[in-house]
């Protein structure tokens, strides 16, 4: 070891990797899902319990990375002793709860909710919703051709006010996820919020100003969580408009963002040698599905030049 103070030799590394002291596992909570006993950790929701029991529960406003707002009500289940149905995504499991996920009441509410959405919103780019409509035999047409659609409160045409992504509120089911992702659950930019009330409630910037005039930083974390395609990459929107959006010809490739040292996981969707969409896995430890403008939109130059 040198006497010179500016040199420093680190002490030899310990032979074993330090680990956090073992924490006691949370006490299990026993509940019954459709007659089958299930054990979930304390703090788990009924949705977790349904998953543990192998029951697929439709969800729309739920995302593992966001605070549940339980607004969409497609995940409702019947809880013994409760006056109304309860949202599985938000209700915490308590010992002894008896839950039915496919009772006539549950099926009816889920069916009607899917019909109400189908009669008021364009669900053409929401494949999960269309699948659930089939599962619950939902017929949105029951409300007739005169049924008001949700876009009455705002302009019905797609908002294309920037080069990166478009907003088509005719497809918006008001799940609040984009507001949460833009706000306190991820980005803390607060460019958008729910405005208006009732059937006229909608996602909006202040006074409905275009995105470039708002606080938007184009992280695209709202696109990441949108369940219906109301928020969409402009590349995808343009390809769809041209009739050239072709999921069968697309590949998904996971990679690491090249821009900075954080190391965000990117999932690149590639079609015809072009990156047409960039997402990040919600379970990626670094990103939890969130990216910045560079990771989200900064790779579309990769690809052949336009001829």
């Amino acid at each position, binding site marked *: 070891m040198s006497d010179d103070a500016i040199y420093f030799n680190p002490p030899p590394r310990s032979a074993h990797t330090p680990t956090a002291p073992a924490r006691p596992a949370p006490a299990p909570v026993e509940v019954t899902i459709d007659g089958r006993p299930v054990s979930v950790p304390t703090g788990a929701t009924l949705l977790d319990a349904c998953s543990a029991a192998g029951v697929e529960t439709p969800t729309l406003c739920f995302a593992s990375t966001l605070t549940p707002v*339980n607004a969409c*009500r497609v995940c409702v289940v019947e809880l013994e002793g409760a006056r109304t149905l309860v949202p599985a995504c938000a209700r915490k499991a308590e010992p002894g709860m008896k839950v039915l996920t496919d009772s006539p009441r549950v099926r*009816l509410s889920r069916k009607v*909710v899917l019909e109400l959405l189908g009669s008021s919103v364009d669900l053409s780019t929401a494949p999960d919703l269309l699948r659930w409509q089939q599962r619950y035999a939902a017929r949105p047409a029951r409300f007739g051709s005169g049924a008001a659609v949700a876009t009455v409160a705002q302009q019905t045409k797609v908002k294309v006010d920037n080069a990166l992504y478009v907003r088509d509120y005719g497809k918006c089911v008001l799940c609040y996820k984009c507001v949460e992702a833009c706000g306190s659950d991820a980005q803390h930019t607060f*460019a958008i919020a729910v405005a*208006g009330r009732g059937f006229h409630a909608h996602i909006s910037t202040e006074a409905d100003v275009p995105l470039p005039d*708002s606080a938007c930083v184009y992280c695209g974390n709202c696109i990441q969580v949108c369940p219906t395609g109301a928020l969409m990459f402009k590349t995808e929107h343009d390809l769809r408009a041209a009739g050239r959006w072709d999921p069968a010809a697309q590949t998904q490739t996971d990679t690491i963002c090249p821009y900075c040292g954080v190391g965000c996981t990117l999932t690149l969707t590639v079609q015809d040698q072009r990156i047409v969409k960039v997402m990040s896995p919600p379970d990626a430890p670094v990103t939890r599905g969130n990216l910045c403008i560079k990771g989200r939109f900064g790779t579309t130059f990769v690809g052949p030049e336009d001829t």
Partner: protein
Amino acid sequence: MDLHLGGGAASAEERAAVDAVLGPPTSRWRGGVDLTLAEHFGLSGGNAVRAERHRLLPVLHALQDRLGWLSRGALDYVSLRLDVPPAEVWGVASFYHLLALSPQAPQVAHVCDDIACRLRGAEALCGELERTLGPAGQGSEYTWKRSPCLGLCEAAPAALVLRAGTPATHQALAPTTADELRAALTSTSTSTSTSTSTSTSTSTSTSTSSSPPSSRLDEVRRAVPDAGDPDHLLLARVGRVDPASLADYRAHGGFAGLTRAIALGPEATIAEVITSRLVGRGGAAFPTGKKWQAVAAQPVRERFIVCNADESEPGTFKDRVLCEWDPFALIEGMTSAALATGASLGFIYLRGEYPRAAAHLEAALAAARAGDLLGPDVAGTGHGFELELRRGAGAYICGEETALFNSIEGRRGEPRAKPPFPVEAGLFGRPTVINNVETLASVPLILARGGAAFAAIGTAGSTGPKLFCVSGAVARPGVYEARFGVTLGELIARAGGVPGDRPLRAVLLGGAAGSFVGPEALALPLTLEALRAAGATLGSGVVMVLDDRADLPDLVRRIARFFRDESCGQCVPCRVGTVRQDELLGRLGAGTPLGSVADERALLGELAQAMRDASICGLGQTASAAIESALRLGLLEASP
């Protein structure tokens, strides 16, 4: 978070309106100009500023009152002062009916076209206004708008004229005519002199103690026809005391309850309320003592008392009468609740359409503070309790307790998921007692007379006196105090019965969220248990009497439109379901059902069940109740 503001500068008057609520800006960062360097680097933001978010609605009110609408520059200044993102300020402001986000005439007549007023010609009144003043919402100096129930049902048809300015004034005209409204709007003076002998009229700037006792009793008797009845318990002081005078309230037995609460101590006070078996008078009928006990038992020390005075259920006006004419009883009830549960701050959330109640409550609060019944040392107990009045801004949903909390906190008035319940996590996430006005006004009675004496009134399952809001086809509509167990027929007879001995067709019990009952229900005792057994509800105490001239299909459609307009829009079953329900009734009314009438009724049944089962809050859960009961009774079929 950086605020991104692009709405332009606020005018000097807009800044003055905001600063009148928040005080002058403390830094240049927060919108201050001409500040010293020390001031500039003073409180510049952070949690201290964001903790003031609950001032958002009061600030928006101040702007609306002074300017008549909210400009983008003004909203940006609010964003800056409170450190709330402009998109969220916009989201909150656009939630409320009484806030205008585009330039609007400074004088607006809000004309009630809801159920009670429809029975008394509101639609004809609106038609005449449209002919003489032009379409609703237009006009640069003055305009008129349709409004949901204004809570003036005893004097239908009613209107509320709001005039922006310094100070803002208001004038309730009930019953009113198109001529009177036109005169009120076109008179250049903003004084209250235009009121006629049949109108109630006050200005926020007028003193409430000026009227002599005899004229006050006359005025009160328009809303409480038998005011002064010696049998009254809850209404005993209404009309008799000066609502602005603490001494007068004391002289009429006031503060006997609070004195007893202080002597008893918290546990015994709660025990007394439990003994009384008082249940909530807002509609849900939850045991009040249990609520207090649950809050008192919480480990969190910071607790709140909230009075739900957002009385917006169509046909309900009892809480307005209590706030206007016996405000100290409410303050006494809330102070007793605070001492019992250990709360040091309370809020009265009053609906925005009750300006006179607001003025009387503010005067009473000031008198109570001056008399040391509120403040750092309540009546020498050493316990501090402060009480603030907050005004709603036109949103029925804010009467839902968790939506009310969000509204006070400066957020959109959207209900929260329960659990957690307010006793655990209510206002600002703290344990909260939230009670209706009538509930809290019953507390002094319980404490002064003893819980057992209160429980001896009424029936075993429904104790105490109860206020009923009788309106529609009766000779003397108004608030009536009765003991639980009075029959529906007796109550209607007390209100003078159906004029002209016309046949009674139906009665709407509990308001838009209640249900219709037929003439066979006249013998029904009005108790919680008897109504529950009959599949009806007492709700907020609405008894709206409908004779053979009532256009019932029109009323039922209005109820459907009410829920369509008042849904907050948060959950799908209610947001879209209330619209589909309204459309369905429209098809039935027009005689153009999809498929057969039976198909439509089956569809309505499914819609109703999904709304009842899957909606977040009581609004969606009850949005079909009255409509389904009308169908069951055959009220949508042509009148006989």
